[in-house]
């Protein structure tokens, strides 16, 4: 048993088994109504050392809750998590020393002090050796492109700069495993590309990474494997290529137009031969991506259904990772 555990932790940086997290809330003062919400519902997966593992899922799917449990901020209701062979629930302090956490968004930084002072504070809390502290902070500031603004107060930073500081902060203790919750959110395209390059470099340097993202191209470009999470469960776990392979018998009819109502989209969804429909707005046009089994057969009925709308273009396309994702979280996968 011992030997098995050792082998397992040598191969895997993260091991999650039957993880469940239930949030309990109550409403009312005298007659309290208790409510239970299952945020994570029995998920299991392992991440190899040096792997870049992605978690994809809609808002409320349970991604952030899972990350918070893996990073010791939350206790699981049941199940277990092992990071580098350490039980997260039993040995949180030992785990914290060896992991980095990048939570996205505007919060999580001290705004009234400078980026350098923020990094210095967190370096001290992580116990970074004093002899290495300043060099590491300078390297990180350089790496995220904040060297010239390092001594400005964070409250004067743009959202993208704050996000880059989050990245630097998550690496200040030179962690072996890095957890990133939507690391490129709020970054402009150039900064997002730089962040992705940095993530690739970190993995090339031997770090294990787990990231969540809403951007499919990002997951496709970066991740070795992706877990698609929906309603607290893993609905698919494979390489990006493997996930796209789920769509191999599918085609996409892409329709661009104006005035397409919810009623018409619902009608399309109800058509035989249509697997799922996604609707977005791009440059003021509506763009529908309709997943069908046989595009040549379905093109006419689809066009017919949209006859009262102003359709400006119809194309047949190859499925992308995003189509696979939409099928998994919205369709009947």
């Amino acid at each position, binding site marked *: 048993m011992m030997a098995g555990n050792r082998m397992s932790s040598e191969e895997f940086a993260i091991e999650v088994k039957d993880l469940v997290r239930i*949030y309990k809330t109550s409403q009312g003062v005298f007659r309290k109504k208790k409510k239970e919400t299952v945020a994570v519902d029995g998920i299991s997966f392992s991440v190899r050392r040096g792997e870049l593992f992605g978690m994809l899922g809609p808002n409320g799917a349970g991604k952030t809750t899972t990350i*918070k449990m893996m*990073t*010791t*901020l*939350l*206790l699981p209701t049941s199940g277990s998590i092992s990071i580098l062979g350490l039980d997260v629930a039993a040995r*949180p*302090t*030992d785990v*914290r*020393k060896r992991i980095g*956490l990048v*939570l996205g*968004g*505007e*919060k*999580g*930084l*001290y*705004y*009234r*002090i400078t980026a350098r*002072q923020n990094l*210095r*504070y*967190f370096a*001290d*809390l*992580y*116990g970074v050796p004093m002899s290495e502290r300043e060099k590491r902070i300078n390297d990180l500031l350089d790496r995220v492109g904040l060297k010239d603004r390092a001594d400005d*107060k964070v409250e004067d930073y743009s959202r993208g700069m704050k996000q880059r500081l989050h990245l630097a*902060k998550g690496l200040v203790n030179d962690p072996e495993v890095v957890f990133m919750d939507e690391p490129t959110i709020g970054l402009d395209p150039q900064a997002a590309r730089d962040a992705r390059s940095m993530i690739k470099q970190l993995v090339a340097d031997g770090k294990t990474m787990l990231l969540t993202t809403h951007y499919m191209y990002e997951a496709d470009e970066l991740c070795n494997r992706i877990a698609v999470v929906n309603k607290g469960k893993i609905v698919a776990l494979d390489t990006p290529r493997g996930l796209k392979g789920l769509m191999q018998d599918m085609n996409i009819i892409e329709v661009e137009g104006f005035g397409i109502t919810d009623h018409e989209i619902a009608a399309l969804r109800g058509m035989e031969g249509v697997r799922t429909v996604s609707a977005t707005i791009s440059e003021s046009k509506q763009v529908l991506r309709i997943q069908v089994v046989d595009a040549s057969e379905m093109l006419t009925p689809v066009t017919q259904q949209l006859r009262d709308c102003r359709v400006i273009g119809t194309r047949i396309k190859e499925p992308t990772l995003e189509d696979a994702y939409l099928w998994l979280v919205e369709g009947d996968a």
Partner: protein
Amino acid sequence: MPRLRTITASFRNQALHFLADPQWLIPNVILPFMITLVVLILFEGQGGNFALYAVLGGGMMGMWGNTLYASGWSIQFDRWNGTLEEVLATPSRLIWIIAGRSMWNALIGILNGLAILLIAIFAFGMDITIRDPALFFLAFFATLMSLSALGLLFSSAFVLTRQAGVLTNGLEYPIYVGTGCMFPIALLPFWTAPLSLSLGPTWGIDAIRYAALDDYAGLQTGYWGDLLIMVAISIAYVAIAVYLFIVVEKRVRKDANLGRY
């Protein structure tokens, strides 16, 4: 993580925030200063012990106000700011992070006391003589540590609540009155005595008065007796706080309310 490193980092971080936002001076320095000023004006010309009571009272109020601010409002600030989760994700214990903050804020309280002393001497011409300056400063410093320990004890509760700031406000005046920092606790109703005597700073303030005043006979335990009792109570505060923080940190990981505000 080594505690001293955490305390030092937190102390420095608090100092940087203080210097970055001078508005913190208003509730923590200017307000107690004004209260003391009023007391000085009221007792101007009376001589005796009143001036020293006012000066000590103002200083203690400033120190307690600042300590409470560090343990209460700064946790609220972290919660709003989203940094409470970030610091809890580090290997440093939250209790030592808050201890560093409390020490900085109590130190600011000393500066407040010093300013009040100078105002009393130079603006009001008060004749303030301290019987034994060495014992006075020893008791003063020990009381400062005791206030920080008391703040630390309360701060475990502040981590659990989203209304830490309101709780902070509520705890300000009971300690001003209970410790007798502005007037002797002998003037309080008898039933308040157990509360007053269970507060470490009560004994510290008494020791300060023993060191400052001639023929002072406060709690009858003498200077060293006061100091000993205060140290024992303060150690108990820290021990209870360490235990409570273990419980609280486990509780917030179970209840998932750190990110809520």
